[in-house]
């Protein structure tokens, strides 16, 4: 059993990742031992060369784990080490579990059934809707929705889960005291109430882009599976999916239009063998959980029949699809005047059957 101060201190030293820290822990059990160890002791640890040894010797003078633990307590954050019972049990199974997690909120959700929902920072209305709806349904099954609190799909996933009252977990790529992106301040506050915010980074760490792959590994590591909702060809979400595969977890991908650049990444995943997800049952099935039975309300065609539409509205509605159609095209295809089409589109919008996209497109809901 390693001392808390030692783990916190090691976690604060640059160049020391989970693997090297594990090596070091074989040599020392207390902070005192570590501080008094000589250069030769360090060099005996596998994976530690002269350069890293220098960094350790230099940094151990600067880092102050006592101060860090005090600061965490002031912020109301809990520090969980990988030897604690509260440490997510799925995370410990991965190759490089972070030795220390800072957590705000209800840490017990970390050991619930968890599913990660990730995707692009610039989602389309389609992706937003799916992220929010899927998260809400998962949360209704008391499944912890894990994501990264980033802009776009991440935010919608958290929002969806919060709509159902949680649980949800946000994994940060910065210190627990920093809200990034700043506009998600409100969401973060709510997550702390309904779930948990965790990070492996010491207090005060800036949200550098180099932190995010490490964050992504925790997102997939906590979860049984990772759902990629929308991702462009080169997207950070694909990194998360790769981690999930390495960690032996499920990868789910939501298909989209073959014309949409934001579905290329997910389609690539499907080609590589990721499970195609149409609804929450596809996920529940994989996890051997009870399925959702009542799907009648979600079915688009049912809704259309409930809301009454006039004949000309129907004529236009039939031309609108689940991928964007320009209003211009509707004018041409129907042969109606722009003023008629504009008015019909307003009426369909008000009936919640279609959504307007900037640039003069509409899409079926």
């Amino acid at each position, binding site marked *: 059993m390693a001392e808390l101060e030692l783990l916190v201190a090691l976690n604060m030293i640059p160049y020391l990742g989970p693997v090297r820290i594990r090596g070091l822990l074989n040599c020392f059990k207390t902070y005192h031992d570590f501080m008094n160890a000589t250069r030769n002791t360090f060099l005996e640890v596998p994976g530690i060369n002269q350069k890293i040894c220098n960094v350790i010797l230099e940094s151990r003078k600067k880092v102050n784990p006592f101060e860090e633990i005090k600061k965490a307590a002031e912020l109301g954050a809990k520090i969980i080490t990988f030897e604690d019972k509260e440490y997510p049990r799925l995370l410990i199974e991965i190759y490089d579990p972070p030795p220390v997690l800072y957590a705000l909120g209800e840490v017990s959700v970390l050991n619930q059934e968890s599913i990660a929902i990730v995707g692009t920072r610039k989602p389309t209305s389609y992706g937003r809707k799916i992220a929010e709806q899927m998260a809400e349904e998962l949360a209704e099954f008391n499944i912890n929705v894990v994501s990264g609190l980033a802009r776009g799909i991440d935010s919608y996933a958290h929002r969806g889960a919060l709509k159902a009252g949680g649980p949800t977990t946000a994994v940060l790529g910065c210190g627990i005291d920093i809200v990034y992106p700043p506009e998600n301040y409100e969401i973060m506050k709510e997550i702390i109430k309904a779930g948990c915010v965790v990070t492996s980074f010491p207090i005060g760490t800036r949200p550098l882009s180099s932190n995010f792959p490490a964050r992504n590994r925790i997102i997939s590591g906590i979860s049984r599976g990772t759902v990629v909702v929308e991702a462009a060809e080169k997207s950070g979400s694909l990194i998360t999916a790769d981690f999930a595969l390495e960690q032996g977890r499920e990868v789910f991908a939501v298909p989209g239009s073959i014309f949409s650049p934001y579905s290329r990444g997910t389609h690539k995943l499907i080609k590589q063998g990721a499970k195609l997800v149409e609804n929450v049952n596809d996920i529940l099935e994989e996890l051997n959980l009870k399925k959702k039975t009542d799907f009648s309300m979600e079915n688009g065609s049912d809704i259309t029949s409930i809301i009454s539409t006039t004949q000309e509205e129907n004529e236009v509605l039939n031309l609108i699809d689940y991928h964007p159609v320009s209003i*211009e095209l509707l004018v041409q295809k129907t042969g109606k005047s722009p003023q008629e089409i504009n008015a019909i589109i307003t009426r369909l919008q008000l009936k919640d059957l279609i959504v307007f996209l900037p640039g003069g*497109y509409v899409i079926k809901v």
Partner: protein
Amino acid sequence: MLASLKSCAIYGLDSFLVDVEVYISSGLPAFEIVGLPDTAVRESRERVRAAIKNQNFDFPIKRITLNLAPADIKKEGPHFDLPIALGILAATEQVPASALQGYSIVGELSLDGRVRPVNGILPMAIEVKQKGLKGIVVPFENAEEAAVIKGIEVIGVKSLQEAVGFFKGEFKPDDIIPEVMDTVTTEFEGDFSEVKGQEVLKRALEIAAAGHHNLIMVGPPGSGKTMIARRIPTILPSMTFEESLELTKIYSIAGLLSGRSSLIKKRPFRAPHHSITPVGLVGGGRIPKPGEVSLAHHGVLFLDELPEFSKEILELLREPLEEGKITISRMNATVTYPASFMLVGAMNPCPCGYFQDPFHECSCPPHKVHNYLSKISGPLLDRIDMQVGVSPVAFSDLEKANSMDSATIKKRVELARAVQLERYKGLNIFYNSQLTPALINKYCKLGRAEKLLMKEAFQRLKLSARAYNRILKVARTIADLDQSENIKERHLAEALQFRNLDRYFQNIRT
């Protein structure tokens, strides 16, 4: 020996009469001009001396004192050359002084005595008529511009000799028939029928033109925003004589009437580049000149790539958009220029142009999109009644043959404008875009079905309270185009389409 004659000077957009007094006395030879002359006026001494000699008149070797009255307003420009020369000739009895009475004289002289054209002739001719003078002597090239004003004699002269000849009764100028010209800037001729597809955008522009609504187009690069904007003047209603006169005055003062020119008949289309300076946009300078907002008076001010304009520049638009005029205060003058224009803006949805585009990936990081859009402030956006999303033209559109031509659209626009003029008689407003909240209550009454639609729209589409009046104004115009007295449900439903981007701007802001 004393002589006195009349000339004109420009102040702001208007002209006033100036007395040119010449006194020649014995003493050391000298030539002094008093009465707040600026450099160009002071330098006229040298031009006048050379011109008089080169046209075979005598230049008196005496003490010449010249006064420009009223002596407390600064006189600018070279157009005092001709009256000064004639004044000296009158004082030395080389031209009959009595013949000069009742005429106002303007013109720049070259050293050999030819008369060169000057700026601001139209307002001068207006002043001459208002003050009840007989006529105006102007440079030959400016004669047609002055001849727009009926009821005064216009004498176009090519040289000092001709001017003297006229006053001696030896030279009779030709009659001048003013020729109508187009705005200098609209050398571009186009027609809406040349633009294939984009029927939705064309419809939006028709509404904007009919109600004089400001409009913003948002769409990816290459969707034809600029191409179609350049053709807006072709669907705007013809200008009335008063409007033409006012616009010509502005161009006359700005020196933009080129060559043989008289009244401008075509509405202006001004498209300043986004590197424009504040002075270039609203006018000003040491000697105030009208800026682009005034040159677009009664026409279209088109700002392409709106967010590329500096924030400072965009905020300057707020006063003219609200008041229809711009007041410039400088050290030695405060002038007001009219600036009632239709603002048409075009922009990409983000720096790369593909934000939320279904078929291209946007390469901008979110904060860049935010910064880009936040250049357009809320107050400015509030003054823009209509927003249109523009999608790129599909190939099938390019092949389509028949498209509405400008003349047909213009006819509908003129009918709708006539309805508005009739309705707002005596209210001192001319189009729907000028409706105040009180007048909106009076003229944009909604029936039960319409109220219901509006209520639903506010809840579902999350419109802001500000959008409410704008939607009503645009719906009023749509009803006017339809020649309908009341705003009907279909008018309102169409008007709502032009607020679709509200949420897009708001979402980005938060």
